[in-house]
C-alpha cells in the first residue's frame, strides 16, 4: 500500500490558530474518516490542539464538497477544515 499524501487547507480562525494556510500531510493508516483526521491533527502540537479543541465546531469539506465527520478521507486529494460559514 502506498502512503497517501493529503492536502489540508484551513480557513478563518482555524487558519489563524494553526498558523498556516495549507500543508500536505501523510496521515497514519488508522486515520479513515474526517473525524479521525481532526483528532490526529489535534495531537500534532499546541497550535493544532487550540484550533481543533472543539471538534463539533469544525466543518469539513472533502475535495471541495461539504462532508460529515464520519465521511472517509482516504483517497481524497484535499480536505478543508473551517468554522461554520458566515457569507452572504
Amino acid at each position, binding site marked *: 500500500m502506498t502512503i497517501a499524501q493529503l492536502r489540508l487547507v484551513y480557513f478563518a480562525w482555524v487558519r489563524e490558530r494553526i498558523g498556516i494556510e495549507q500543508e500536505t500531510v501523510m496521515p497514519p493508516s488508522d486515520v479513515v474518516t474526517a473525524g479521525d483526521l481532526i483528532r490526529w491533527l489535534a495531537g500534532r502540537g499546541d497550535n493544532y490542539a487550540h484550533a481543533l479543541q472543539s471538534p463539533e465546531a469544525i466543518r469539513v469539506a472533502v475535495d471541495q464538497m461539504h462532508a460529515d465527520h464520519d465521511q472517509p478521507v482516504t483517497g481524497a486529494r484535499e480536505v478543508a477544515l*473551517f468554522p461554520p460559514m458566515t*457569507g452572504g
Partner: protein
Amino acid sequence: MAAAISIRVAAADFDQGAEIAALSEGRTDVGAVAAFVGLCRDEGGRLAALELQHYPGMAEAEIRRVVLEATTRWPALTAVTVVHRHGRIAPGGRIVLVACASGHRADAFAAAEFLMDFLKTRAPFWKKEHNADGTSGDWVEASHADDAAADRWRS
C-alpha cells in the same frame, strides 16, 4: 429550457442594475425579477470594515450546487445570478447579489430567499470584523437565525 445561470466570486464591486437587467435582456417571457443585495453594516459605528475570506474553487462550486437546487425546486426559473465578493468591504459596500427571474413573482421571490438562506449556511465564506478603534476584530459567529432560516426549506 434550463435556467441561465451566472455565478461570480470576485473582489471587485458589481453593477446591480446591469446584473438585474441582464436576467431579462432580449426576453419577452420574464414577468418577474426578485433581487437581493447584501451590504456591509458598521454595527452602530463599531466596525471599520468586514474582511471576507473564501475558499477559492469551492465557493463557486458550492454556490452552483445551491443554485441547481433552486432551479430544480422552481423549474419555472428562467435565470439566476449570484455575485459574491471577497476581500475587505467598508460599511455601506455591497457584499452579495442574488437575482432570480421567472414568469411570475412567487417563484422568483421564493428562489431568491432560498438562495440567500443557503448561501449564508453553505457557501464557504467567513467574515472577519475590523474594528473602528483600530483593534483587531473577531471572526463573525454563525447565527442561529441563519440556521433556522435554512432549516425551514427542509419540510
